[in-house]
């Protein structure tokens, strides 16, 4: 590589690094200006405290919560909270019936809704519907006595025979303004249901559940495509059923097409309220229906997440929502940082001792890596809701080691190449090629760990995986776009190129053996056979034959198999 091209490639790398910094700082500035962004990362529950929400089950008279139901609810709520960002919430049970959710910061209404609502989804056929008008002055329709035995058995879920006189009376008396859906979770799926639409505008008598939310295998939010395939501005939730659900759904829709009037409608019931009741225009055979019904982007996403993770086995209501202080507090963080700083100073001393002025490159690189990590974390904190916990801080401190390792691998490679008698410039070039390969392979392992743990794990583990992923990527960026170009440029200075004693790259000190005009001894050849422990310099200057003779004489130290 020509000299000028080295400078060019080095400067190009540094410019790229500058671009990355500019994007991060710019993005961050934008977040600060637009929303409640900040120049410092947000801290997690353990360091900063947050809000403790106690959820109390909504139980009908005489009902109780089982341990399994509670454990299941905790797992589902945790997944829901996780899905809203990397906030490391704490979810636990209290007194065998309440659920305590602690989240950093102040939760808004949407977050509370996301956590609390049970998200029990049912598909029921519509039997009767009407505009809900409730006249408080009107005499309530009298509920008749038990229907006579032997009423006609309904043939299917759409059969109007489901409507008994009692049900009809209940329907007539229904006041959508005061509809209490606490019973919705326990509503018998094999019985018809009297309920209202979510906005209270319509009331319904619905048939038994045809397809339940448990048959949903996936749910995502998105814009609903119009008839021409162009997406409209309407948000909806796209559902994917498993095999059973697909089959059930096909059977139902095939039956409903043929039915007249409102019986053609299919009610989508969420937590006991009808969120929409579309007409059945075609049989849905692929098991991928979509739900529409006055969603905003946010509410569609919340419902999508809720459906994906499943319905809570019981409904909950917020008993209390109070601020809570940190369990560890900033003193822990400060002491940790002080201790880490002392460790870092030791790292600097050690690097300078080991690599002389080259050690300064390590120090600079680590500093740049730290600043980059800081901005990445701050940016993700603003954009993704990432929160830095004490475990995260510890992860960052360990990252010092892994990041420094990349430099060490690179430096040792340069020294190896120098030992083989190359010039500094070609040493750097050859060393980079090999070192980068090693760095890529080892970072790939860390990155796979980060991605797999992030995608599959929940709770604290996810936060850890996030930190690991960030530091791994930062490591790669720094070594490729900062350390390498810096070394390339330094390698051209007289100080380093001449192999100054203090440069850390002195070929003589590195034992490069001069063999005559511009030719150094190939050290591979030497190392191949030199296994003897005694004597170093003298040994290395022996002829190969001498050495062999010695080995045969039984002076080998072992190792040959």
């Amino acid at each position: 590589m020509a000299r000028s091209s080295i400078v060019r490639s080095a400067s190009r790398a540094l410019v790229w690094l500058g671009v990355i910094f500019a994007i991060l700082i710019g993005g961050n500035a934008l977040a600060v200006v637009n929303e409640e962004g900040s120049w410092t990362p947000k801290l997690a529950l353990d360091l900063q405290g947050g809000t403790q929400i106690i959820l109390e089950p909504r139980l009908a008279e005489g009902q109780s919560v089982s341990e399994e139901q509670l454990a299941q609810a905790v797992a589902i709520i945790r997944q829901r909270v996780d899905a809203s960002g990397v906030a490391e919430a704490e979810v636990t049970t209290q007194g065998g019936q309440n659920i305590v959710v602690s989240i950093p910061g102040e939760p808004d209404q949407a977050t509370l809704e996301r956590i609390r609502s049970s998200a029990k989804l049912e598909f029921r056929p519509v039997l009767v519907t009407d505009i809900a008008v409730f006249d408080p002055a009107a005499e309530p329709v009298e509920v008749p006595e038990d229907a006579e035995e032997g009423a006609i058995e309904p043939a299917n879920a759409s059969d109007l025979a489901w409507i008994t006189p009692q049900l009809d009376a209940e329907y007539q008396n229904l006041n959508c303004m005061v509809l209490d859906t606490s019973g919705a979770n326990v509503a018998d799926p094999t019985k018809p249901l009297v309920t209202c639409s979510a906005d209270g505008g319509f009331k319904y008598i619905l048939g038994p559940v045809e397809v339940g939310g448990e048959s949903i295998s996936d749910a995502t939010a998105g814009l609903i495509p119009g008839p021409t395939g162009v997406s409209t501005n309407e948000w909806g939730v796209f559902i994917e059923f498993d095999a059973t659900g697909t089959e059930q759904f096909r059977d139902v829709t095939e039956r409903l097409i043929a039915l007249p009037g409102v019986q053609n409608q299919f009610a989508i019931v969420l937590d006991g309220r009808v969120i929409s009741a579309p007409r059945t225009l075609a049989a849905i055979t692929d098991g991928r229906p979509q739900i529409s019904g006055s969603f905003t982007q946010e509410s569609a996403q919340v419902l999508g997440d809720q459906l994906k993770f499943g319905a809570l086995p019981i409904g909950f209501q917020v008993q209390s929502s109070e601020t809570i202080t940190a369990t560890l507090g900033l003193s822990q963080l400060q002491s940790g940082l002080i201790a880490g700083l002392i460790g870092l100073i030791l790292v600097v001393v050690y690097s300078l001792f080991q690599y002389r002025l080259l050690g300064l490159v390590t120090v600079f690189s680590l500093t740049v890596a730290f600043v980059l990590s800081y901005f990445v974390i701050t940016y993700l904190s603003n954009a993704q809701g990432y929160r830095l916990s004490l475990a995260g801080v510890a992860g960052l401190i360990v990252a010092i080691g892994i990041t420094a390792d990349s430099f060490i691998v690179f430096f040792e490679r340069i020294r190896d190449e120098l030992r083989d008698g190359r010039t500094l410039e070609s040493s750097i070039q050859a060393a980079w090629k090999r070192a980068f390969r090693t760095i890529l392979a080892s970072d790939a392992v860390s990155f796979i760990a980060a991605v797999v743990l992030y995608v599959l794990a929940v709770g604290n583990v996810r936060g850890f995986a996030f930190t690991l992923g960030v530091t791994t990527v930062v490591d790669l960026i720094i070594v490729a776009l900062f350390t390498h170009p810096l070394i390339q440029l330094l390698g051209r200075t007289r100080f380093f190129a001449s192999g100054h004693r203090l440069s850390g790259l002195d070929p003589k000190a590195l034992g490069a053996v001069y063999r005559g005009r511009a030719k150094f001894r190939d050290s591979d050849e030497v190392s191949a056979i030199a296994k003897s422990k005694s004597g170093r310099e003298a040994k290395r200057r022996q002829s190969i034959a001498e050495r062999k003779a010695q080995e045969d004489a039984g002076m080998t130290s072992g190792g040959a198999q």
Partner: protein
Amino acid sequence: MSMLTRFGNDLYTGARSFDFVGRRVLWYLVGAGLVLAAIVITTLRGGFVFGIEFRGGSEFRVSNPSAVVEQVATDTVNELVGAGSNPRVSIVGGDSIRVQTEQLTTEETELLRAELATDYDVPVNEVTSSFIGATWGQDITVQALRALAVFLVLVSLVMAAYFRTWKMSLAAMTALIHDLAITAGVYGVLGFEITPAAVIGFLTILGYSLYDTVVVFDKVRENTSEDGEESARTFAESVNLAVNQTLVRSINTSVVAVLPVAGILFIGSLLLGAGTLRDIALALFIGIIAGTYSTIFIAAPMYVHLRENEPEAKKQGRRREQVQRPASGAVR
């Protein structure tokens, strides 16, 4: 130049060489011994001690205390339940104290309630108690283990593809199990509580151990593949040389990685006593050392063990025997 530089030179050329591969039976025995000791002593001690985040515990709430400070509760619990019980104390809603401790018996609960009431100067009925479940519940553990299994399989496959042999994957995984067993063993043997912070520490070690092994194996791959059949070195010698050549890197890296952790562990613990930082730093301190050690003393020798009887590998180094024969004869 520092001694380590000269040391590095000698290791690189082979003028000085440590026989990591040749004495592998010894290293295997040492490793197996340590792992066995970790398991046996931990079992004899009655298994791991898990923190309240895993087991759940008791919760107390002091309403409207005379002074809304956390320290009083910490001291009270430490006094009553025993030092090092590490209660989690926080202020809820600005006017009450929440104290979480390990699970207490009914008598202990009543005692602590009374004590907290006295110390905070409130009537006993202002101190409520209840049981809390685990914040790190079964579901997190199950999910984390599943993720771990997927990760290990995936990394084994990636390593096998990158190094073109599954034997390196196997050797690396063995070293990994060794590291995790020893790190967890330290907690088991010393009876330290396993907290979520410690688990995060174990996970970090998992990554570090594999990372370290990949770096050294990359040099091994380079040496063994470059040598080929024509080499004068046997396969074992090639691997041993690679380990020696990366020895200075291994020492430097582990020193650099361990220094900040040691800072947290020793200085931080002195400043703070037991806590999240100590939990995580201890796991990291032991794990980083074990990770570096096991790459050199277990992963590399094991790789040789797995490979050296392959016909390909056997061919390596034959040439030397042929070359050597005349050397020992009279013709020169």
